[in-house]
């Protein structure tokens, strides 16, 4: 990781102190009590996993040099997100990986290089320490892949029933490259709408992992840090108008945000939208619409027509963008609306969801 802590080189911060250890199997209220048990808990789980120089002194805040940040660009980006997924572990990831990727992606879609993250956890007493350790290690490994450091954090333990096992909040700071200008209001007629691969995997995985349907189908979350992919896109297509990760509410929600934000119409073709057969089948069974399923490794990009080819080539050259495809275009007709030509050849509006998507009775 390339960020530099204020203390680097000043004194022996690189000298690792001996870290405390937790030697009981479950989290208890004592681990949030402010005493030795809490310090051992933080040492064992988080300091050990995340060890880096801004974090090591365990001050109440992480400190960074402004000059070091300025090397990456000319504006700061700052974001926060909370993660409450159930189950905590699912095929293709866990809450820890999600908590890093989600915040990294929220920074990256604004054209920022993600640099520093915070991590605050709220743990229900009785959760296994091994599970916590696993989640912390998963966060650490994902942070390495994403090129970010977790530099400050907080731990709270709450009584049984006060939260559902484990909630994580991460906030993140990134620096936006000079000259990059992305905005939901910038889409223009004739721009192309591109997605970086199959949609709905994460949403279907979580629903399936909850086990209500007891389907033995293997679906994997697409959870991934996309800063590299987005960097490649912006390099190849510098006039890219807008990028957003299609998380809660899925593709349909992002498209509607663009249509309203830019006061344009969006035309998409259902036949172009990449969805795995297994996810389509899952949705057919449950009466769900994959256009609204959450993704954790997918972005919707609006690119200028004359840069579309370069954008697609750059995206497809990246491991997280192999299946990138243009699914539609921006138009000046019907501003504020998303219109889809269906597989059958009919046309319909694609609107935002009113509430949660609920399975249909018949």
């Amino acid at each position, binding site marked *: 990781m390339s960020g530099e802590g204020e203390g680097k080189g000043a004194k022996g911060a690189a000298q690792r102190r001996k870290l405390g250890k937790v030697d009981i199997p479950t989290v208890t209220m004592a681990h949030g009590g402010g005493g030795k048990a809490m310090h051992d808990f933080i040492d064992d789980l988080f300091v050990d996993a995340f060890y880096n120089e801004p974090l090591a002194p365990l001050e109440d805040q992480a400190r960074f040099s402004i000059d070091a940040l300025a090397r990456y660009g000319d504006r700061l980006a700052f974001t926060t997100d909370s993660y409450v997924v159930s189950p905590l572990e699912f095929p293709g990831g866990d809450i820890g990986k999600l908590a890093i990727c989600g915040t990294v992606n929220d920074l990256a879609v604004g054209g920022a290089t993600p640099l520093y993250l915070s991590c605050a956890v709220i743990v229900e007493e009785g959760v296994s320490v091994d599970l916590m350790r696993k989640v912390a290690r998963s966060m650490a490994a994902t942070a390495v892949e994403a090129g970010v450091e977790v530099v400050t954090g907080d731990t709270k333990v709450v009584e049984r029933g006060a939260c559902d096992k484990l909630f994580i909040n991460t906030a993140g700071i990134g620096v936006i490259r000079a000259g990059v200008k992305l905005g939901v209001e910038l889409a223009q007629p004739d721009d192309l709408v591109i997605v970086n691969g199959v949609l709905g995997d994460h949403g279907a995985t979580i629903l399936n992992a909850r086990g209500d349907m007891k389907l033995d189908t293997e679906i994997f979350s697409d959870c991934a840090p996309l800063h590299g992919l987005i960097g490649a896109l912006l390099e190849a297509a510098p006039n890219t108008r807008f990028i957003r990760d299609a998380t809660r509410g899925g593709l349909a929600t992002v498209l509607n945000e663009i249509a309203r934000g830019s006061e344009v119409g969006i035309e998409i073709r259902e036949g172009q939208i990449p969805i795995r*057969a297994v996810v389509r089948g899952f949705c057919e069974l449950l009466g769900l619409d994959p256009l609204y399923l959450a993704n954790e490794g997918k972005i919707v990009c609006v690119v200028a027509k004359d840069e579309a080819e370069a954008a697609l080539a750059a995206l497809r050259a990246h491991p997280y963008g192999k299946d990138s495809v243009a699914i539609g275009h921006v138009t000046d007709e019907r501003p504020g609306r998303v219109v889809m030509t269906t597989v059958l050849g009919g046309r319909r509006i694609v609107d935002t969801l009113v509430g949660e998507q609920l399975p249909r009775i018949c």
Partner: protein
Amino acid sequence: MKYVDEFRDPEKAQTLVEKIRALVDQIDACKSRPLYIMEVCGGHTHAIFRYGIESMLPEEIELVHGPGCPVCVLPMGRVDDCVAIAETPKVIFTTFGDAMRVPGSSKSLLEAKAGGADVRMVYSPLDSLSLARDNPDKEVVFFGLGFETTMPSTALTVLQAEAEGIENFSLFCNHITIIPAIKAILDAPGVQIDGFLGPGHVSMVIGNAPYDFVADQYDRPLVVTGFEPLDILHGIWMVLEQLASGEARIENQYSRVVPDEGNGPALEAIAKVFELREFFEWRGLGSIDHSGVKMREAYAKYDAERKFSVPDLVIADPKACQCGEVLKGVIKPYDCKLFGNDCTPETPMGALMVSSEGACAAYSRYGRVEKLVPLLGRGAGTGTGKAPQAEVEAP
């Protein structure tokens, strides 16, 4: 996806649309007025909107979205009863997902859940029975909802509970039957429906004979139709063929699923557990004789209506609601004064705005692209973060 994609083939759809257009030209009636074809089932309505089927049909054909959405026609008083049962201590109230959001007079099941009631979404009544097995100290209630399609699985679950001697399971029975509703619509004044797409999945259970009266007494064609888009286009074409030749018969487009005689064991299970009510209240249509079922005396101990005291009140729809007229095809959703103003998917007032299968919700969500009035004017737009104004559709 095998056995699905074959029924969504755009080339075959185009061929059917052309055949439909050719038939429309042969039918004299539609030279002066549209042809009204009612799809009875909410599943049809959903598919029609999802695939944009209306946008492919000739202008002379008006699809009327019928009463076959069990969530839509559920009266508000029954939702209140559900909430009252769900809020009883030691009750686990189980329901199909899309019934959670239906507003009662004070709250929906979703709101009752948020208030602390143990309301759980299940995919089958057998899931409820498992919950009863796993929670012997709780009373598990299943919200039985739907037409003859879902009735057999509920009946078999009650029989299973009896066979296993499970005592802490009961059924809040709101099952309804489609035939009296079709009859009520045909008898309503001002109704103009030229033909019907019959409900495929109901027919899989009851067979085709119960529809004979539609042809014999009302001289209208009815084609039992499947739910894939090509099924629906094919069903419309079959109705038009009858209209073009001046015939009125009951036909079965969905023969790959629907046997003429229905499903014997399913009908037996229904008859064993349920009997007809004298009348049942339908949201939007009012009380219809013999249109609902209740549990027979022999299964009284599994009957939530007898186990729990519920308010059992009839709550009238708001006066301005014109759901009944929409259901009968007398007006289109956008002709209703409330549509898009006081009644939206976010704050539904009438039955048809409640479920995604309701005609008003479908018009509101999917619209007919060709009939849209601009949502945003350039320069007069809402910008980011602000919800758009109510969706408007030109009559």
